[in-house]
């Protein structure tokens, strides 16, 4: 992937060591995530025809990279994330995580991944610490160490030690999302799946989370899949971008590559927004008509 060089240009404080380590890893090692020709249909109601949520999608994520999945609402971003998470079964195709097949090597894969979804899903009456402790035990972590780690991660995200004992429901959405990120990081995932982690956050929290993701890629050895609604976010954080529309990949490249191609096509400077408009025929903020909004829990 050509993203290594571009990625370093993008980051304000490029980490020379990281770049070197990655260059060595690229040719020899298996990719962090390999999605090959994956399709997923949903049948909702007896008579309706199936919704093809993901259609023959392929994706390759190298270790230490961040791939962005862009798409309007209903384009299949979350479905793709859930397929990789093992929360949905594949209709066809294959997914492997660091060489482990997600169906055959289920437990190994589960140890390697974690996910943050758009809604911070917690036991809302319990405190962040109680919720994180539960996660730590499920992943077989040493409890005392996990507690220290949790306080450290939350502190880094701007949540003081005083708050970790109070019910989550008393926190703002931005704070809750930060706790969700802490929960995922606590288990040191080699592959981190972030499903619209900044959607609906206040500008301040959004910036905090973005900065944290940026920091993660520099300091942790995590490979990240990031779905987002935010084109600036994608441009800032991602080494490569895949644009989904109607469950299909419509275009994929590095952010700079996408923009350059678009500029050539238009004969003037372009933005990611132009790229998105050209390839999906819509603005990212337009909502796709959802199959059946009525049976959402």
């Amino acid at each position, binding site marked *: 992937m050509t993203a290594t060089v571009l990625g370093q240009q993008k980051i304000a404080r490029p980490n020379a060591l990281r770049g070197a380590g990655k260059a060595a890893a690229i040719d020899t090692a298996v990719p962090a995530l390999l999605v090959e020709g994956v399709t997923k249909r949903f049948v909702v109601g007896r008579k309706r025809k199936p919704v093809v949520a993901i259609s023959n999608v392929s994706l390759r994520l190298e270790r230490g990279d961040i791939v962005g999945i862009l798409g309007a609402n209903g384009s299949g971003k979350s479905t793709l994330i859930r397929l990789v998470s093992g929360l949905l079964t594949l209709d066809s195709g294959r997914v492997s995580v660091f060489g482990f097949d997600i169906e055959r090597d289920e437990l190994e894969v589960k140890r390697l991944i974690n996910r943050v979804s758009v809604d911070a899903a917690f036991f809302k*009456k319990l405190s962040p610490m109680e919720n994180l402790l539960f996660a730590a035990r499920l992943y*077989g972590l040493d409890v005392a160490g996990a507690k220290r780690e949790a306080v450290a991660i939350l502190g880094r995200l701007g949540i003081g030690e005083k708050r970790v004992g109070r019910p989550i429901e008393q926190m703002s959405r931005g704070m809750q999302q930060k706790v969700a990120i802490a929960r995922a990081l606590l288990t040191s995932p080699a592959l981190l799946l972030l499903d619209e982690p900044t959607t609906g956050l206040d500008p301040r929290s959004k910036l905090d989370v973005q900065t944290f993701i940026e920091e993660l890629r520099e300091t942790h050895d995590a490979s990240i899949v990031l779905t987002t609604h935010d084109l600036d976010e994608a441009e800032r954080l991602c080494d490569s971008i895949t644009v989904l529309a109607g469950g299909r990949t419509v275009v994929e490249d590095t952010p700079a590559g996408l923009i350059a191609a678009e500029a050539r096509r238009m004969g003037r400077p372009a933005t990611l927004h132009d790229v998105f408009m050209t390839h999906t025929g819509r603005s990212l903020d337009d909502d796709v008509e959802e199959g059946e909004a009525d049976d959402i829990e």
Partner: protein
Amino acid sequence: MTTFAHELKASYAFMERNFFLTRRYWGWEIAFLVYSVAGALSISLIGADQGSPRLLLLLMVGAIFWNYLSVVFSWIAETISVERWEGTLEYTMMAPIRRWSQLLGSVLYAMLYGLIHTAVILVVLILFFPQLDFTGANPLTVVAFMLLGSFSFVGIGMIAAILPLLYVERGAQMTFVLQSCLLLVSGVYYSIDILPGWMQVLSHLSPATYVLDGVRKGLIDGAPVTALLGDVWPLVVMGAVLIPFGLWAFGRAERYAKRTGKLKRVG
């Protein structure tokens, strides 16, 4: 760390989390306990009102042991629905653990919680009715039937827990209905002989029927377990069949939910 130790640690995670929940909802726990004590007491008072020590005991056993079984049942049956309600189900499903360790954790917590809950009710009732005479009772029989009954209820609880995986909304409601039906047919407060014939067929399928019969005979008549084999073997069979079946069905249900997108769809 061996796999098995890791799985037990995961089981403990569920126990601890349920304990956290109980602790956080302590106001409701007390309210629920008061409700249960008052319910058991008022039903037992019907026996006192009739001036029949035997009826008093029959009703008391019914109230107390039904409380135990239904508490165990609901904690297990709500394993999934609680997580669906809170939205954490997908995260728990993603954890690198086996499903049996999750269920084991729920089961152990349910039994512990049920025992404490029931002990409180028992103590209140004994204090309230000092005239009760347990000298002829056989405590071993009582304990044996509680244990045996727990196994079957664990199995039924697991099967009930699956329903919210299969039916997003209706599942929890079905669980509730199932529990109500068990109450009706198991002879909790009356002899099943007075039920219509078709209901008696269901009575024989409910483990609670045998538990209550065994406990009553042990407590009131002092019967040893060996004299109650007619109540023992159905419980042994049900436990031995329902628990493995519950585990198997759970796996199938999980697979079904993942295929059809029933775990969660929003987000």
